[in-house]
């Protein structure tokens, strides 16, 4: 029988650096590996990513497996699943973690099913059950109305983590680790990449913004699904379970009901201020401050007073 040991994370790079999700994966991955007393492995796929391997070591990885190849610059199901499947066969990790990102949403289920095991998506808490050393996975379900605690009874135990739900690893350049290059075979598949269309919205990136408003004003702008579906805002600015996960200092929620699916995207916001004409609106359950009013009447004097306070 195979002995499954260690934690394997699938890291992601973004414009020449490790993506924020990679630091979260390192943070939780290192913690789980320590709790088990085992090693943390990191997989680093992409084009020109080799220089980032030392960053993963600095973030806590004991071994980094690098697949640096122009053919895998963009995530692609067949090649990435084959690479991760190969690594899982080689390492037999007990736990495999990815981000709940474009990559992880697609790769985690495919990999898990190829490995003959189950997967828990979009986890917000992971811990080791000290009795049987297996992974306990907590994830929001029913749009965030409930939490489920799950245990996968087959190995490896595969999970994705919700962005901004885990503590990022600290960078420590004195850490030592091994960097191993792995060969890339791109299997012939039924999906051909034609092109990528970038639809970046001008201004501050939603995920990095300190102030977000669901109505035009200062800071970045984001909204609910109906607002994006109807074309008032571009789809990239949808906040929520199936949109962006944000963690601003202030989220001004204007005329949004506070559905659990929307609020799932801003649980990391430090201050939520709600404006809604309905005193029973669910959004007030999440807010620190609220005003029951028609936003069309409230926003102009609010904007004016804020400007006055900020300039004075």
């Amino acid at each position, binding site marked *: 029988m195979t002995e499954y040991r260690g934690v394997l994370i699938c890291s992601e790079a973004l414009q020449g650096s490790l993506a924020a999700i990679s630091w979260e994966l390192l943070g939780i991955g290192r913690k789980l590996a320590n709790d088990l007393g085992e090693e943390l492995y990191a997989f680093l796929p992409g084009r020109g990513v080799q220089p980032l391997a030392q960053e993963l070591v600095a973030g806590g990885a004991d071994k980094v497996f690098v697949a640096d190849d122009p053919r895998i610059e*963009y995530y692609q*199901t067949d090649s990435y699943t084959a690479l991760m499947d190969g690594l899982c066969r080689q390492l037999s990790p007990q736990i495999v973690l990815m981000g709940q990102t*474009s990559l992880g949403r*697609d790769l*985690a*289920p*495919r990999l898990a*099913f190829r490995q003959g095991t189950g997967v*828990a*998506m*979009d986890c917000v808490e992971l811990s080791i059950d000290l009795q049987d050393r297996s992974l*306990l996975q907590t994830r929001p*379900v*029913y*749009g965030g109305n*409930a*939490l489920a*605690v*799950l245990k*996968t*009874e087959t190995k490896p135990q595969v999970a994705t983590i919700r962005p901004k739900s885990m503590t990022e690893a600290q960078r420590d350049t004195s850490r030592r680790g091994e960097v191993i290059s792995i060969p890339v075979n791109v299997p012939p*598949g*039924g*999906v051909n*990449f*034609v*092109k*990528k*269309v*970038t*639809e970046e919205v001008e201004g501050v990136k939603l995920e990095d913004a300190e102030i977000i408003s669901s109505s035009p004003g200062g800071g970045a702008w984001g909204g609910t*699904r109906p607002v994006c579906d109807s074309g008032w805002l571009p*789809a*990239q600015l949808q906040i929520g*379970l*199936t949109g962006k996960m944000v963690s601003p*200092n*202030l989220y001004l929620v204007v005329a949004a009901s506070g*559905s*659990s699916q929307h609020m799932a995207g801003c649980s990391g916001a430090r201050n939520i*201020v*709600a404006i809604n004409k309905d005193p029973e609106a*669910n959004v*007030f*359950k*999440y807010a*620190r*401050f*609220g*005003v*029951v*009013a028609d936003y069309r009447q*409230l*926003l*102009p004097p*609010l904007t004016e*007073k*804020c400007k006055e*306070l*900020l300039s004075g």
Partner: protein
Amino acid sequence: MDIIVCVKQVPDPETPPASFRIDPGTNKVIPAQGIAPVISTFDELAVEAALRIKDKHGGKVTAMTLGPESARDVLKHAMAMGADEGIHLLDAAFGDGDGWATAYALAQAIKKVGRYDLVLCGRQAADWDAGQVGLGIAEFLNLPSVTPIKKVEVSDGKLGVERLVADGFEVLEVSPPALLTVSNELGEPRYPTLRGIMMAARKQVTTWNAQDIGVEASQVGARGARTKLLRLFIPIRESKCEIVEGEDVVDAATKLALRLRESKII
């Protein structure tokens, strides 16, 4: 192009959170009084995507569901929208499965259908929000897959697909048979027409049990599940919202601004 669309019945995801209840004894959601279950939002969009292809290129659209007796309603809904047939996987053995067990049963049923060029699913079900069954079906059937998509078009026997990513979308060319999962960026689903509803009411749906699709009871449902649910609960949210009031709207706005400043939020 022959298309199979997998659809799931879920508690209405727009149920007000105040009516959302869980039975801690069974780890199950207690259906909210007077709120009927619905076809999962993204699955309805998968039906829409299939019908758009059918409108242009012809072919057959088959809706398939795994679920209890009541799940027949979502097949009827898909048929009222314009799907040609419905297949209901109905067996006590299918109950309480995880993504693995459900994907396995659906994949076996799709194999039994035999002829298809495309399988469509919603990007995730509105109850468990996992988004793994579609990909699981693709893995069991060894199909190429793309998830989640906002557009699919057929030309020269190939599928032109737009896949959503964080900062835009990717344009991909996919060879059928393939599996795609559909997101809300596709656009609004059509409403069933009166004629559609009447036709759907007259049509039979096909019902298959575990034996019909050649699976053992131990491979599906709770017994086939790889991932076990230990606990389902409603997180306690301490509501501590300070409602700012004023003599009129302008006064309320002024007070809110002052409170935000005092609390060092702005």
